[in-house]
């Protein structure tokens, strides 16, 4: 690649009276000052946003460690309650935690099964349709949950007559995560030279199935991981659709707890645990997302 080193590349073109060390130094000085100013701005922005995000979290943590809301002092009671808390008439809290985690896994898996082969196939065989599919995948982003639910009620009436399991929510969740998953997978897919790799594999005797699952998919594992984690986090935080379709997932359960006992400490501990868990997932995502050393 051509060097973009300003000093080296530009110097010969500068008239001699201006040329040389002076110009370079001035430019470097300007550059340095600008960079310092940028750094200061970064630190301030980082600090402001840090306080904005961390302060409520810390407050939440503090409240989860009180014996009772606003009582002061320290106690692990709220954390111990996560496993045992029950509101009469609804399932236990811990069961909802587990169901929601499982729902996240099911949704992510279903999304992968649906989207990965489809996207590879489109890229390989029917690239002209990719715009349409992208549009369809991004559509759920533009439709408000309430509108979605209005459309989904008849469908879920039908589903609920056959199976009342909360897991049935995954049908709508797969649709809900499409925009995010599509974007993540598209990025992963674009980093692979699909045409050359598939032709090379075909030439070696690979079937289309082998091309998709043993050649292309392993090389977009970054995109696959991103899409899975995004889908999973989205499901952990989903409230309106579950609530409106009369399912009890974690968020709905927490809502009903808060209706019964507005200041139940267990709300704080559970919320904090879920938030931290999601943050950890996103942190994993951004770290694993970095290219490995020496790669490409």
């Amino acid at each position, binding site marked *: 690649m051509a060097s973009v080193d300003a000093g080296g590349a530009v110097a010969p073109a500068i008239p001699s009276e201006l040329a040389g060390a002076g110009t370079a130094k001035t430019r470097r000085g300007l550059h340095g000052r600008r960079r310092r100013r940028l750094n200061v701005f970064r630190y301030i922005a980082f600090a402001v946003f840090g306080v904005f995000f961390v302060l409520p979290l810390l407050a939440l943590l503090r409240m989860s460690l009180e014996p009772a809301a606003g009582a002061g002092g320290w106690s692990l009671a709220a954390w111990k309650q996560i496993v045992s808390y029950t509101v009469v008439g609804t399932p236990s809290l811990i069961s909802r935690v587990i169901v929601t985690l499982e729902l996240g896994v099911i949704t992510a898996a279903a999304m992968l099964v649906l989207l990965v082969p489809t996207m590879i196939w489109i890229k390989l065989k029917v690239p002209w349709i990719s715009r349409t599919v992208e549009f369809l995948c991004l559509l759920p982003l533009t439709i408000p949950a309430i509108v979605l639910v209005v459309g989904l009620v008849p469908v879920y009436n039908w589903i609920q007559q056959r199976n009342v399991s909360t897991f049935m929510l995954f049908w709508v969740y797969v649709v809900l995560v499409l925009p995010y998953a599509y974007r993540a997978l598209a990025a992963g897919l674009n980093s*692979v*030279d699909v045409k*050359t790799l598939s*032709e090379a594999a075909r*030439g*070696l005797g690979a079937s289309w199935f082998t091309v998709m699952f043993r050649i292309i998919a392993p090389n977009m*594992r970054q995109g696959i991981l991103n899409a899975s984690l995004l889908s999973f986090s989205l499901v952990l935080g989903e409230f309106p659709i579950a609530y409106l379709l009369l399912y009890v997932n974690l968020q709905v359960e927490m809502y009903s707890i808060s209706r019964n006992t507005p200041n139940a400490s267990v709300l704080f501990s559970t919320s904090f645990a879920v938030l931290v868990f999601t943050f950890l997932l996103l942190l994993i995502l951004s770290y694993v997302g970095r290219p490995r050393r*020496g790669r490409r």
Partner: protein
Amino acid sequence: MSVPATGVSSAATRSGVEVRLEGLSRHYGDVKALDGLDLTLHQGELVVLLGPSGCGKTTTLRLLAGLEDADTGRVMVGGQDVTGLPASKRDMGMVFQAYSLFPHMTVKDNVAFGLKLRHKPRAERDKRAMDMLELVGLTTQAGRYAHQLSGGQQQRVALARALAIQPQVLLLDEPLSALDAKVRAQLRDEIRRIQLEVGTTTLFVTHDQEEALAIADRVGVMRDGRIEQLGSPVDVYTRPETPFVAEFVGLSNRLAGEATGSGTVVVRGATLPLVDADMPAGPVVAQVRPEAVTVTSGGSTEAGPLTGTVIAITFLGATSRVTVDLGDTTVMAAMATAEATSLAAGERVTLTIRPNPVLVSAESAAASAG
């Protein structure tokens, strides 16, 4: 189409299958990429398709590979019609211009991949992979990944991978284009050595005429979806059959001349033999190779049809190209650098044209005479 016997005799002694492309046509929308192409690759032969981009050479290779379907025509490999077979069933090794190693596999796994698909036992796969890596000189890199290799190494591994499945036909689609000049020449010679060693019938596609001439048993020069000339490198270079071939393979001076009607042409006072002896008398344009032109200085500087002024000397390494202004036209001469250094721009010189057979064309004569 004439198929000179050169190259065939040496190829016949090698193993490999015969490949016949019969009347292949392929359109992309309104664009005719291939127009009834016929080509036979003899057993173990290395045929290079040479031509500018868009001439159909890569399309030919892709049709042979089964990566695209022909509109009409047949592909015969070893006497069998494979036209309808998908790429995965055609048993052909391919090396592409773009680096095509599977990034998530080690070098060895890449090479062994084709064997794995054929359900060969692990021990056999490993041995064959290492043998192939030895053939391309990369046994020490077996455990590495593609991103840890240089471009030249990656193409070597790709070659090893293509050969590991013992393909009937080896297809090389501009495998050297992405490499720098030195590696390109090295790998070119190596591909030829390996191809002779394994004896696989090979189709090599390139736009680089030097590469084509260096490596081929036969060169097919393509233009607009057809093969303009197919012959040994020496034939194609010294006896081009069409003006396009003469222009595309090597450099040519286009000089106005007069065909005598008896197998010669008079160009600026020099009498030269014709490639096509049947050319009727009349004004023509002759294509004279730069290496057929000699420049002498210090002679008579009287004005004459072959006396002119040096306007440029281009240093090319061992040889130099001297451009001489003859008043009404300029002529390029290729000469040893040692001789060229005695010349200077602006010097009066006399040219001599060696009587090598030249190609003439009558149709463009009118245009350039006007």
